[in-house]
C-alpha cells in the first residue's frame, strides 16, 4: 500500500494534542457533519417546519379575526405560541429522528462514538444541534408572519435579548425531550409516539391562548403547567407582546419561566444521557 501523503509531524502533533483540544475539535467536526446534512435537506426542512405554522397563522391570525370570530388582537397573542411550537417541534424532530437511525440496527453513530471525545459530548452535540435547528425554525416564522398578518403583525422590540434567550431555551427544551424520546422509543414505535406525545403537547402548551386566560378553567390551567411548552409560549409572549392591545393578559412570571425551563432542560438531558449511554456502551 502506498504511503499516505501525511507528514509525520502532523500525525505526531495530533498524538501530543491535549485531550481537551482533541475533544473540542471532534465536537465541532460532528456539529459540522450535522449542519452539512441539514443544509443539503434545507428545502425539506423548511417545508416540514413551516407548513403547519403557515396555516395556523393564516386561519387563526387572519381568517378568524377577519370574519369576526376572533378578537383583533388575537394574532399578536397567537404569534409567540406559533414561534414556540415551531421551535420546539423542529428541535425534537432534529434530535429524535437522526437518533433512531444512529442507534438502529446499522449503528451509524459508531464512527462518532469512536472519535476522541467523551460519550456524553456526543449526546451534548445532538442537543446543541437540535437547539440551533429549533432557533432557525423560529427565526423563519417572523418574515412569514409579516407576510401573512400584514398590519396585524405586532412584536415589541424592547425585549429582543429576552426573545433570543427564550428561543434558545425553547430549542434546548425540545432537543433534550427529543433525546429522551429517541433513546427510549424503538424505531417501530416512533410514529405512534409522535402522535401520542405531540397532540397533547401542542394543545396543552398555551400556544393558542395565554395562560392567565385559563383562570376560568382552573383545573386545566394547572394541568398546562406540566407541559414544558407552556413555559416556552409564555416566555415568548412576555418577550414579544406589547402590553397594550393584547387584552392586557399578564404572562407567567419570566423568572418562573426561565427557572422551570432550566430545570426541565437539566432533567431531560440527565435522563436522555443515561438512556443514551445505556444504548451505546454495554
Amino acid at each position, binding site marked *: *500500500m502506498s504511503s499516505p501523503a501525511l507528514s509525520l509531524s502532523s500525525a505526531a502533533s495530533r498524538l501530543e494534542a491535549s485531550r481537551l483540544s482533541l475533544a473540542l475539535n471532534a465536537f465541532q467536526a460532528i456539529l459540522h457533519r450535522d449542519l452539512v446534512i441539514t443544509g443539503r435537506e434545507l428545502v425539506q426542512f423548511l417545508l416540514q417546519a413551516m407548513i403547519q405554522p403557515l396555516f395556523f397563522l393564516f386561519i387563526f391570525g387572519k381568517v378568524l379575526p377577519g370574519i369576526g370570530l376572533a378578537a383583533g388582537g388575537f394574532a399578536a397573542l397567537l404569534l409567540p405560541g406559533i414561534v414556540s411550537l415551531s421551535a420546539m417541534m423542529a428541535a425534537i424532530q432534529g434530535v429524535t429522528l437522526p437518533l433512531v437511525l444512529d442507534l438502529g440496527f446499522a449503528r451509524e453513530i459508531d464512527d462518532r462514538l469512536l472519535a*476522541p471525545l467523551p460519550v456524553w459530548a456526543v449526546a451534548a452535540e445532538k442537543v446543541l444541534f437540535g437547539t440551533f435547528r429549533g432557533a432557525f425554525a423560529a427565526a423563519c416564522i417572523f418574515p412569514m408572519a409579516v407576510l401573512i398578518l400584514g398590519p396585524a403583525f405586532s412584536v415589541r422590540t424592547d425585549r429582543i435579548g429576552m426573545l433570543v434567550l427564550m428561543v434558545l431555551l425553547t430549542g434546548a427544551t425540545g432537543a433534550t425531550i427529543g433525546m429522551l424520546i429517541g433513546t427510549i422509543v424503538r424505531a417501530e414505535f416512533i410514529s405512534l409516539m409522535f402522535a401520542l406525545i405531540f397532540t397533547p403537547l401542542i394543545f396543552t402548551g398555551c400556544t393558542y391562548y395565554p395562560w392567565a386566560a385559563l383562570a376560568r378553567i382552573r383545573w386545566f390551567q394547572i394541568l398546562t403547567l406540566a407541559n414544558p411548552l407552556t413555559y416556552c409560549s409564555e416566555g415568548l409572549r412576555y418577550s414579544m407582546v406589547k402590553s397594550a392591545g393584547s387584552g392586557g393578559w399578564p404572562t407567567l412570571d419570566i423568572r418562573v419561566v426561565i427557572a422551570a425551563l432550566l430545570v426541565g432542560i437539566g432533567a431531560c438531558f440527565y435522563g436522555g444521557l443515561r438512556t443514551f449511554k445505556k444504548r451505546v456502551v*454495554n
Partner: protein
Amino acid sequence: MNQAISVDRLVKCYPKAKSNAVDGVSFIVPRGEIFGLLGPNGAGKTTIIGVLTTAVLPTSGSAAVAGHDVTRDQIRVKQRIAVVPQQNNLDRSLRVREILTFHAAYHGVSKRERDALADSLLKELGLYDRQMDKVARYSGGMAQRVMIARALMHEPEVLFLDEPTNNLDPQSRLFLWDRIQALNGRGLTILLTTHDMHEADRLCQKIAIMDHGKILVNDTPAELKKLIPGGNALELQVEAGEAERRELLRRLEALPSVTKVEEVAPSETDDDLSSCRLYSVQAGSLVGSAAQAAIEAGVRIRDISVRNATLEEVFIYLTGRHLR
C-alpha cells in the same frame, strides 16, 4: 511501550446473563503483530474487541491499548485505534468521500491532509469513481472497502477487524488479506477475529483460541498444530506382498519418535498397492529413514508424503463438534 494491547484478567458479565461472556482473559499483543482471536460463535471475541475499543465496560480486570487504560483514558485510546466491525455501520447520510473526510476531521486531521489521504485511499481501494455515491448503492464488498479506508484515515496504531472477511466474495477476501499484510508491513498492529482457519493461519503471527469466554491456547499457528497428538503424519504408498508389508510396518514402528503406525485400507483396484501412515511430531524429518526402512523391507515406494495438522483440526480438537 512495546505492547500494543495488554489484557489482564478481564471479565465481562452482561446483566441477566447466566455466565460470563469473557471469563478471566489475559493476553498481550506486541507492537507490529497480527494477532488472531479464534472461537465459535458466542465465545467472547466480539466482547473483547468491544472492551478494547471502549464500547463495552469490563466487569473486572483491566485492558490497555498503546499504553492507555481503556476505561480511564478513553480519549487517548480512541485516538489510536480504528475498528472495522462485522456489520456495515457506515454513515448513510453522507457520501462515500465524506465518510472518509469527516472521520478524519473527527480525529483532527487537517483539511489538506484529509483530502490528500482520501484521494489516495479511494484510488487504491478502487472506489474513486463512485466516491460521490451514498453507501446505500454500494455492494457488501465495496462497503467493506469503505470501512477499511475509513479506518485508515487517521493513521491508527492498532486496527481491530471483527470477522472482516465474513460474507465477502473470494476476490474481495484475497484483496483484503493482501491489504492486511501490507498494513502490517508498515508497522500497524492488527487484532482480528475470525472463524476462518485458513485466514488465521495465513495472516496471524499469534493465535488465541477461545471458547466459553476463556482463552484455551495462545501460540503461533505452527505450535498450535503440534497440540493434536500425532497431528503430523507421514504417508507411504507402497507395492508389496503380504509378508513384505508386515515387515515394513515392523520396521516403521521401530523408528524413533513414532507414536503410531497404521495401515490405511489397501487399494481396491490393485491388490499389491497399499498405504500406511506413521504418526510423529517430527514426521517431516523421518522421510529418509522411512524410505530406508521400505527398501530394507523389500517393498517398492510409489509415493511418500508429509501431512500436517490443520488449524481447523486443532480448533475442533479444542472446542468440540457440537453446534452453538
